[in-house]
């Protein structure tokens, strides 16, 4: 048997428990093959447990394991780093829990915070630069770890309660759709819930629009008086959060 054929059979054994493949590898070593299969599956379960701690706590051991097994069966890992494996679990949970939107939103939050933890470094904008900025024409640069996810439920409140070891609130839909903002400030992953107005402002910054253009859009949306106050408040929050890491 060629090495390529052997490795194909090993994959079939690990992923599909293919007995014919195991027999071709060598049946006298079935105990050893079982060790490898157990290692493969238990490592992936552990990877998902570690990556989705709050989802695990929310669903409970049995339901989480069933979801993990469904994901592992459907989605063998393909990337060299195990860190890449959890990303697809969010979609699996959305499929498994179509009527419980908080599950996928909790999963997105777990995953986004983990990703931010190891994301690229960038120092927040130094305060002494602010006075020198031409605010009409400046294009702000956001933290490279910034991610925005959908928030239709109180997943953020559930996440916070579970993280603090408190009894989580019952899941419910938000009165108005919002968004979850995740980023890393220094070495600490952070998140907060933002309204759709701030979401649109961030999208415009990410599109490379100037701060002046952003304020003009805000005026069209909110009127002159409210837009000035909103732009100032949001900009101040972004600076305090360390979300702005440069400008040009």
């Amino acid at each position, binding site marked *: 048997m060629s090495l390529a054929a052997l490795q194909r059979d090993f994959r079939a054994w*690990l992923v599909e428990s293919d007995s014919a493949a195991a027999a071709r*590898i*060598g049946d006298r*070593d079935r105990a050893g093959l079982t060790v490898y299969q157990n290692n493969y599956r238990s490592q992936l379960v552990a990877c998902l447990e570690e990556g989705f701690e709050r989802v695990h706590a929310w669903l409970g051991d049995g339901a989480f394991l069933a979801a993990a097994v469904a994901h592992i069966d459907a989605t063998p890992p393909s990337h060299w780093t195990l860190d890449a494996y959890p990303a697809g679990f969010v979609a699996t949970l959305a499929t498994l829990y179509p009527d419980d939107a908080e599950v996928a939103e909790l999963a997105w939050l777990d995953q986004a915070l983990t990703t931010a933890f190891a*994301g690229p470094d960038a120092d927040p904008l130094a305060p002494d630069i602010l006075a020198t900025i031409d605010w009409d024409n400046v294009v702000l640069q956001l933290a490279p770890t910034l991610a925005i996810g959908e928030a239709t439920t109180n997943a953020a409140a559930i996440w916070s309660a579970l993280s603090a070891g408190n009894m989580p609130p019952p899941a419910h839909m938000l009165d108005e759709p919002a968004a979850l903002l995740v980023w890393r400030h220094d*070495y600490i992953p952070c998140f907060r819930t933002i309204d759709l107005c701030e979401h649109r402002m961030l999208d415009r910054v990410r599109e490379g629009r100037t701060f002046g253009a952003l304020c003009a859009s805000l005026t069209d949306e909110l009127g002159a008086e409210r837009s000035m106050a909103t732009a100032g408040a949001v900009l101040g929050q972004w600076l305090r959060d360390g979300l702005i890491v440069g400008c040009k």
Partner: protein
Amino acid sequence: MPDQTVSGYGLGLRKQHYGDFLDHAVPVDFVEVISENFMIDGGRPRDILRRVRERHPVALHGVSMSIGSADGLDRAYLDRLRALVDEIEPLFVSDHLSWSRFAGFSSHDLLPLPYTDEVLDLVCANIATAQDVLGRPMLIENPSSYVAFDGSTMTEWQFLDAMCKRSGCGLLLDINNIFVSATNHGFDPLAYIDGVPVDRVRQVHLAGHSRGQDLLIDTHDQPVPPTVWALYDYALDRLGPVATMIERDDAIPPLADLLGELDHARSIGAARDRRAA
């Protein structure tokens, strides 16, 4: 052939001990880290590694190169590793004589290889590619294994000898892995140690294992057992002074426990030195 001739005693750096290594002068000659844990864009782990590197020499030990992949190495992986090597300037760069990836599938486990001429050709070609990208020789570690292949035409130590001669790589000799595989497959661990090219061994791993239902399992969640200490003593008579470390990956104890094990390794090394004098 690796030109580093470092001896001394080290530990695997694990996150449970980051504070110890950053806040105290830990009596080790080097630390070893799992390369993939630091092949990331940024964040606290990279910062910690940089700060530890200011205090200690660092060895990079990989688990995902998949040097035995029939369809070759992952260039993106090698480029990431090269960037880390350039930043850390490690004592050694090592990975395992095993495979984990094939045709778009990644098992994330150290899977066994048959020891044949075909595999020797392939492994040596992959080592050459890796050494070319990394710009330095690698160390290859002997694996623990739970399956032996009827089609193998040479022993593991014969394979390691041929691999080193052809590729110019060095060896990371894991004494626990020798014991685990010898027990599982019924060969003599002393014959293994006698058979490996001792002049190519640059680093030694010491670890513990667990007993499964039918086989010994390389769990790295136990102290180094007496059987492995005895093999280390035997190996040192052939190897001479060599960089040695305790490798603990699970059920991580307080740092003092691992330093105690490292002191035991030092005492075995000192006794060997007295015998050799």
